[in-house]
């Protein structure tokens, strides 16, 4: 009787163990920076979603903006014997020793949305956006939108000296090259709505009440949202009197586009995990080495897209 019971329970345990191992075919550790911005919250949501859809067991670690927390997380992932590690590195330096430990443990590492200064044989690949490309998409859209006619643009820059500000400016200028569209004023608004509004107010005053301005280019959507209010308060129509193009594609800019107050936005996709999982699958299946840099998609959204649908999709991602 007793023996029967033991055997039965052993069988139950065995089946449970078997089913768990088969369901959790792949375990991936993900060390996220934190949740300092809406975009990052959306990235976390999408990464968790992607893992769930693919039946991957994702071990999530929030580093709260600290590199030492990320290093600890990486070491604990090694101890847990995960199959792969995703890292969104908070800083570019200081990764050599921990990544060597990961490499010795034979675990592939994929960097998400930021790169590091270490030698590139310490990681499998990096999935990041190309800020220069984003800027050039915005610039080319504007040149097309004004049919190659003359157009004076005011530019709201991101935080002075930051990589997105420098590269989105450079890319936009590349996009304008050879056209009659030119930047007449450019000032930083620190990526914030308040500054976006304040700086736009001064642009409007400085350029004849806005009569000389044909378009606004903002390095992120938040500054554009602030600037749109300044344009309205000056008695002009954003979207028609002054064209508005910005980058990021956060939900609020879709609201503005639906109201006809913004014209275009280039998406900084929060889906860095999708391409990362694809590269990892191919690598684990037959050892295909991905390129060292995978560029994430930078899609352009205009009024021709189904804005309501995209807004509905984005509004619950945690932006």
């Amino acid at each position, binding site marked *: 009787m007793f023996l029967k019971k033991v055997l039965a329970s052993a069988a139950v345990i065995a089946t449970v163990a078997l089913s768990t191992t088969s369901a959790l075919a792949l375990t991936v550790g993900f060390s996220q920076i934190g*949740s*300092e*911005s*809406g975009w990052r*919250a959306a990235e976390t949501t999408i990464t968790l979603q992607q893992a769930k859809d693919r039946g991957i067991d994702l071990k999530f670690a929030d580093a709260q903006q600290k590199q030492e927390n990320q290093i600890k997380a990486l070491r604990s992932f090694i101890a847990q014997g995960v199959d792969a590690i995703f890292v969104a590195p908070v800083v570019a330096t200081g990764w050599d020793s921990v990544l060597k430990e990961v490499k010795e443990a034979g675990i592939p590492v994929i960097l998400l949305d930021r790169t590091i200064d270490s030698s590139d044989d310490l990681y499998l690949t990096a999935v990041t956006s190309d800020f220069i490309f984003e800027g050039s998409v915005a610039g080319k859209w504007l040149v097309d939108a004004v049919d190659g006619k003359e157009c004076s643009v005011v530019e709201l*820059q991101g935080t*002075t*000296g930051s990589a997105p500000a420098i590269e989105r400016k450079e890319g936009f200028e590349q996009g304008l090259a050879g056209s009659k569209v030119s930047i007449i*004023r*450019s*000032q*930083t608004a*620190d990526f*914030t*709505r*308040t500054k976006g*509004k*304040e*700086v736009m*107010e*001064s*642009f409007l*005053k*400085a350029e004849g009440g806005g009569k000389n301005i044909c378009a606004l280019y903002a390095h992120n959507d*938040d500054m554009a*949202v*602030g600037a749109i*209010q300044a344009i309205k*308060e*000056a*008695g002009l129509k954003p979207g028609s009197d002054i064209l508005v193009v910005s980058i990021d594609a956060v939900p*609020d800019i879709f609201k503005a586009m639906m109201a006809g107050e913004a014209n275009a936005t280039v998406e900084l996709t929060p889906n860095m995990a999708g391409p990362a999982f694809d590269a990892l699958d191919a690598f684990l299946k037959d050892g295909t080495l991905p390129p060292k840099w995978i560029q994430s998609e930078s899609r352009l959204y205009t009024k021709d897209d189904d804005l309501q649908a995209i807004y509905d999709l984005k509004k619950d991602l*945690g*932006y």
Partner: protein
Amino acid sequence: MNSLKRYAPQLTTLAIVLLLNYLVFPDFFKIEIANGKLYGTLIDVLNRGAPVALLCVGMTLVIATKGIDLSVGAVMAICGAVAASTVDSGGGVFMALSLALLAGLICGIWNGVLVSVLNIQPIIATLILMVAGRGIAQLITEGAILTFNDEGLIFVGSGSIFSIPMPILIWIAVGIIVTFIVRRTALGMLIESIGINQRASTFSGVNARVLLILVYAVSGLCAALAGTIAAADIRGADANNAGLWLELDAILAVVVGGTSLLGGRFTLIGSLIGAMIIQSINTGILLSGFPPEFNLIIKAAIIVIILVIQSPALQSKYIEYRDRRETGKTPVGKDAAS
């Protein structure tokens, strides 16, 4: 006349900064009415300067007691978030304003209790809320920018009465009311006495403990108004960026306005002029069209010059020089002595 003379250094500085602005942008003093509202760069200075001007009112009183309030920027973020989430969940503008003011009051009293009851140094006591406050604000907005469409609350930030934008009316009203209260009663003098020597004033019967809590509470209330205006202005509460570094601008405005960080004598009107000097510099830089890399250098250079001109060492040299010249011509007059 006498009072004007007292503010002569601040008013001269303001005039010079405004003149500089006029030189880089000739339409600087042009004011017209657009959409039933005063419209012009000078109006922008008064309007954009509202948050710092409001913070200055509370900060001046705190600094007069030899204290400092580093938390005002974070309190702005908290109160803006409270106001936004109130209208977001169906409350009206009055409810939003009251709750925001209540939140500011609680933050202020917290700082006041730390400083006066627990005797923690003000810079450390208020640093706690400066760091933690933004986290509290993020909890309220759940990390995102909380946007709203409540016309009543938006009116606080971008509406106008008699064509004058609301933020301007609010900071001028608060400035007048607080000045009236502290100068028409003995309150101002009692605050100054705490700043000069807290123990001596306690021995002579001043209730320093209550007064200290009071000045930090006023600072919290001012920050609450500033935070509500900042949120209403952009129709959203941005917990990460609302009021960021504004505590430093407020302290600077108080110092430029002629109140010493060592406590004691204070001038609210001077601080408000100081706030306008700083905003004029900011607006001037935006209008000048220089590349943004120069913004901070220009601002720093102008402020260094202002502070050097106002420095006690230079002032006493100037008075010495003037006295020597005047005694050469005429006997020492009343003016030369002042």
